[in-house]
């Protein structure tokens, strides 16, 4: 039983990261009906920018760990948001009225471009965040040893997700985003600047992805230029699992995927971990094609 709960916490920690990345996929899909395959690489960029800023500014020595992490997170999120906006402007906007396939190909191209650019700029080697900058203590909850950092990691992702949820649901800009997601043409007629909404979506999604990259870098330490591919794939799966285009769905899907993986690894086979996760995805898509929280939308004729 203890092993079960240990695996559950393992799964939730990984799932929190998946969920945070999945939000980027789901937001872009919700508004533009486009899978931004370069999203995983924006996550990688977040991890690399975090390391660069951390090392070059020497923040941890100057202002202490907690303010340093917060400041770092803000800087990384802003920078990745700018890159996301540029990506939209260069790779997607010119193709907005082309067939959807063109945009998908453009997304794949952007992904390959980012990966190779990171490799060319930073070297293909694994880079490592400085060791022991964060506390390594573990607390004991009901007989389980849980590292403090993992709890902070999980709570931070949860916080970011909730902030996004309320931003979308309760603010005027959030309403505009939702309107554009339902019907871009009608939203335009209502006086919403759809171009600006899309630009905003391409700032928020990447910013969250970049924050996830920074968190992975800080917690796991090791980063490399191709790390975004695997995380991107998993987060994409999580988004579909929860119902793509649906923000609470991305959160639920991410956490669920992490837990399924951990339990699958524990009780079936480690080598089959990914296969199990994808099998669950297929099963859910057969039973509920729109994903767990997705709603069936009537097709316009």
């Amino acid at each position, binding site marked *: 039983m203890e092993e079960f709960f240990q695996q559950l916490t*393992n799964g939730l920690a990984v799932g929190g990261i998946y969920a945070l990345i999945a939000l980027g996929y789901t937001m872009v899909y919700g508004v533009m009906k486009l899978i931004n395959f370069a999203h995983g690489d924006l996550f990688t960029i977040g991890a690399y920018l975090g390391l660069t800023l951390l090392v070059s500014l020497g923040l941890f020595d100057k202002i202490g760990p907690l303010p340093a992490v917060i400041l770092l997170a803000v800087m990384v999120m802003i920078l990745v948001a700018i890159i996301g906006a540029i990506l939209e402007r260069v790779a997607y906007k010119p193709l907005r009225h082309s067939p959807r396939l063109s945009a998908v190909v453009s997304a794949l191209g952007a992904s390959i471009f980012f990966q190779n650019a990171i490799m060319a700029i930073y070297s*293909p080697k*694994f880079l490592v965040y400085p*060791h022991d900058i964060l506390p390594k203590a573990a607390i004991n909850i009901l007989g389980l040893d849980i590292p403090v950092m993992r709890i902070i990691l999980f709570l931070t992702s949860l916080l970011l997700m909730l902030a996004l949820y309320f931003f979308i649901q309760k603010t005027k800009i959030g309403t505009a985003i939702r309107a554009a997601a339902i019907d871009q043409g009608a939203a335009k007629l209502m006086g919403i600047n759809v171009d600006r909404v899309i630009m905003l979506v391409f700032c928020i999604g990447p910013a969250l992805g970049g924050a996830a990259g920074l968190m992975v870098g800080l917690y796991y*330490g*090791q980063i490399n230029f191709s*790390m975004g591919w695997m995380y991107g794939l998993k987060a994409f799966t999580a988004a579909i699992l929860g119902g793509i285009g649906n923000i609470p769905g991305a959160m639920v899907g991410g956490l669920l995927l992490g837990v399924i993986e*951990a339990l699958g*690894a524990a009780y079936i086979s480690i080598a089959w971990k990914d296969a199990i996760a994808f099998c669950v995805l297929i099963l859910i898509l057969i039973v509920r094609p729109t994903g767990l929280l997705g709603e069936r939308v009537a097709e316009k004729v």
Partner: protein
Amino acid sequence: MKKKLFTLGFLTLALVALTLGSAWAKTVRIGLMCPLTGSWASEGQDMKQIVELLAAETNKAGGINGDQVEIVIEDDGGDPRQAALAATRLTTKEISSVIGTYGSSVTEASQNIYAESGILQVATGSTAIRLSEKNLPLFFRTCPRDDEQGMVAAKTLGALGYSKIAILHDNTSYAKGLADEAKSLLEKEGKTIAFFDALTPGERDYNAILTKLKSAAPDVVFFTGYYPEAGMLLRQKMEMGWNVPMLGGDATNNPDLVKIAGNKAADGYMFLSPPVPADLDTPEAKAFMEAYKAKYGTAPGSVWAVLAGDAYRVIVEAIAKSKETSGEKLAAYLRTQLKDFSGLTGKISFNDKGDRVGDLYRVYKVDAAGAFVLQP
């Protein structure tokens, strides 16, 4: 009109001069297939730097029998599909021999392509057994085989007094092969295999696997995969507060392992490997290490890249001594006449299958400062 004629005449002259020029300066072209991109890119970059350095030295010393050496490089991306493309491209570039590559599955994808084109292939880091069991006459390798490593692993684990052993691999043809080999040898010796499974390479979080491993309560964990995963395992194992000793295969021989795990987590980690570059004690090796440092400012990372240097050296030796460039002739020379050639990693001879003969494996332990210490 006159001007046009003049230009045309000039161009023709230039063209003739060019073709004549290249005919005069005869070159020997040697291919290098290595992972310049992909997850093993750092190994590939080292391989490229080493082979280019050695080729520059050869050319400075007057080339091979007076011919200059030219290295033709193709990137295999550490990926079997891309390797097949890279190999096909290389076969069209007038090379008689090729060096490479690092991973076994990647080498396997290229073997038949070279064999059909009559090109001599000297692999550098591909240790899977079956690569040389196919009896391809033009295939050689400067690295040892997994069965030898499996034997050394079983011997080492026995000598250290462990009886309940967990084996973890990563499903690549190399890691799986080594894990199977070690498992059957250990079972023959009456040891208990408490755990046998594979992880997915390229992930960051291995806590789920470590939790499962821990509940199997082994005396020791034998991990046969690559260094990025080994580093993460060590680090997360320490953070879990689990103190089981860990032994790794030769693919964990890379200084980046310590960088990833951190000195504290890597302390006490053991691995099997051919000697690391710093422990190479032949005069050739010392001269090479100095030259490398002078040119690139650092020491070469792992021995696998240095084995690419050895592959280059045996190819050059074969071309120089046999005065031939056809793949078959070079292979015949390597198989029958090259005996105890002093390479960078020690004496090199090949057996009938193209495998390097001789005992190459050592046991290393990481010390508290993160250095690889050769165990007696």
